[in-house]
C-alpha cells in the first residue's frame, strides 16, 4: 500500500468517525437537564440498600460485576509489568548508595507516612458513606509507604516491604472478591448479589450490606498491586544494571 493510499484511508476513516461522533453528540440530552431516568433509579436502589454514597452502590452493588472486570484488568496489567521488568540473566544488582537527605525533609516524610497510611484506610472504610473507596484509598496507602524511599533511601523501604507478602495479599484480595460473589450465589439469588448481610443503619460505617466488604477487598488488592508495580520500577531505576556496565 503506497503512502498516498494510506493517507486517503486514514482521512476516510477519520471523517467517518467524526461524522458518527458529531451525530451522537447532537442526540445527547442537554447539559444539566432535569430528566435523569438512570440516575433516579440508581439513587432509589442505593437508598433502598442503605448505601449513602450512590457511586459506591453503583460500583460495588448494582454494577459489582463490572468492578470485578476492572480489578482483573489491574491484576493482569501488574502481572505483565512484573514479568517484563524482572531481572534478566545479563543484569546484576548493585547496592544503592544511601542518599543524603536534609533533616527537615526526612522528619516530614517520617511524620506524614503514618498520617497518609491512616488516611488511605479512612478513605477505604468510608467508601459507602463519602467520596472515595477501595481504589482511591488503596493508592493513597501504597503511595504513603514510598515516602520511606523519598525521605530516607531505598534500603529502608526494602526492609519494611517483603514483596512475597504483598504478592500473597494481592492474590488473596482478588480471590476474596470472587468468593464474596460466589457466596451471594450460594446464599441467595445471583453472583455478587447484595443480599447476604443486613443493610444496617443508613449513614453508618456498617451500612450497605456487602459494599464495605467488597470495598475492603478492592482496597487491599489495589494497595498490594501498586506496591508491587512500584517495586519493579524502583528495582530497575535504582538497583539493576547491565553486566559490564559502569
Amino acid at each position: 500500500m503506497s503512502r498516498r493510499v494510506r493517507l486517503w484511508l486514514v482521512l476516510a476513516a477519520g471523517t467517518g468517525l467524526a461524522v458518527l461522533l458529531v451525530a451522537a453528540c447532537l442526540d445527547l440530552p442537554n447539559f444539566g437537564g432535569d430528566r435523569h431516568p438512570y440516575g433516579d433509579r440508581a439513587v432509589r436502589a442505593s437508598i433502598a440498600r442503605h448505601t449513602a454514597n450512590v457511586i459506591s452502590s453503583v460500583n460495588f452493588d448494582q454494577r459489582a460485576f463490572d468492578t470485578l472486570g476492572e480489578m482483573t484488568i489491574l491484576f493482569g496489567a501488574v502481572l505483565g509489568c512484573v514479568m517484563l521488568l524482572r531481572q534478566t540473566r545479563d543484569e546484576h544488582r548493585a547496592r544503592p548508595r544511601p542518599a543524603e537527605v536534609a533533616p527537615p525533609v526526612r522528619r516530614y516524610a517520617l511524620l506524614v507516612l503514618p498520617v497518609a497510611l491512616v488516611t488511605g484506610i479512612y478513605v477505604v472504610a468510608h467508601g459507602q458513606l463519602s467520596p472515595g473507596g477501595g481504589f482511591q484509598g488503596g493508592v493513597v496507602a501504597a503511595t504513603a509507604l514510598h515516602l520511606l524511599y523519598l525521605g530516607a533511601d531505598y534500603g529502608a523501604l526494602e526492609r519494611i516491604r517483603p514483596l512475597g507478602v504483598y504478592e500473597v495479599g494481592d492474590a488473596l484480595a482478588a480471590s476474596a472478591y470472587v468468593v464474596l460473589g460466589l457466596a451471594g450465589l450460594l446464599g441467595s439469588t445471583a453472583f455478587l448479589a447484595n443480599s447476604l448481610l443486613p443493610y444496617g443503619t443508613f449513614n453508618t460505617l456498617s451500612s450497605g450490606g456487602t459494599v464495605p466488604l467488597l470495598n475492603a477487598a478492592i482496597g487491599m488488592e489495589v494497595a498490594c498491586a501498586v506496591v508491587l508495580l512500584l517495586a519493579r520500577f524502583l528495582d530497575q531505576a535504582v538497583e539493576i544494571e547491565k553486566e559490564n556496565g559502569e
Partner: protein
Amino acid sequence: MNGWTLAATVGLAGGLGTALWGVATGPLRRRVVAQNLATALACPAMLLLAQGYGRPAYVDLGLVLALLGPVGTLVFARLLADELAEDPPRAWVATWAVAALGAVTVIALCVATGPSRAMAKLLVIGALLIGGNVIASRALAGGFRRVGRG
C-alpha cells in the same frame, strides 16, 4: 453562585493560571516551583468549593491533595536532584505568600464552620498543606545532596 464558589473561581483562574504559565516556560528551577505552588493553590480552592456547594464530604479531596501534593513535589526534588543542584530554585517569597493564602482560607472556613469535628479536620488539612508546601520548597532548594544512584 455564592461568595465561596466565587472566591474559588478567582483563586483557580488567577493561581492555577499563573502556575500553568510558570510550569510551561522558563528554566527547570522555575518549573518545579510552579508545580509545587499549583498543588498548594488547588487545595484551598477545593476546600472553598466544598463549602460553596455545602458538601462537607468534598473536604476529603482537599485532605488527599494536602497529603499527596507535596509528596509529588518530593518525587521531582529527589529524582531531579542533580539538575537542581546546579541551578537551585529560590522562591521563598512565593512559597510563603501561597502558604499565607492557604492559612487565610482555612481560618475563614473554620470561622464559618464553628467549633466541631469538621473544624478539627480543616485545621489538620491546613497544617498538612502549609507544612508540606514549605518542606517541599526546602527539598527543591537542595534537600537532597549526593543522591547519585540512590
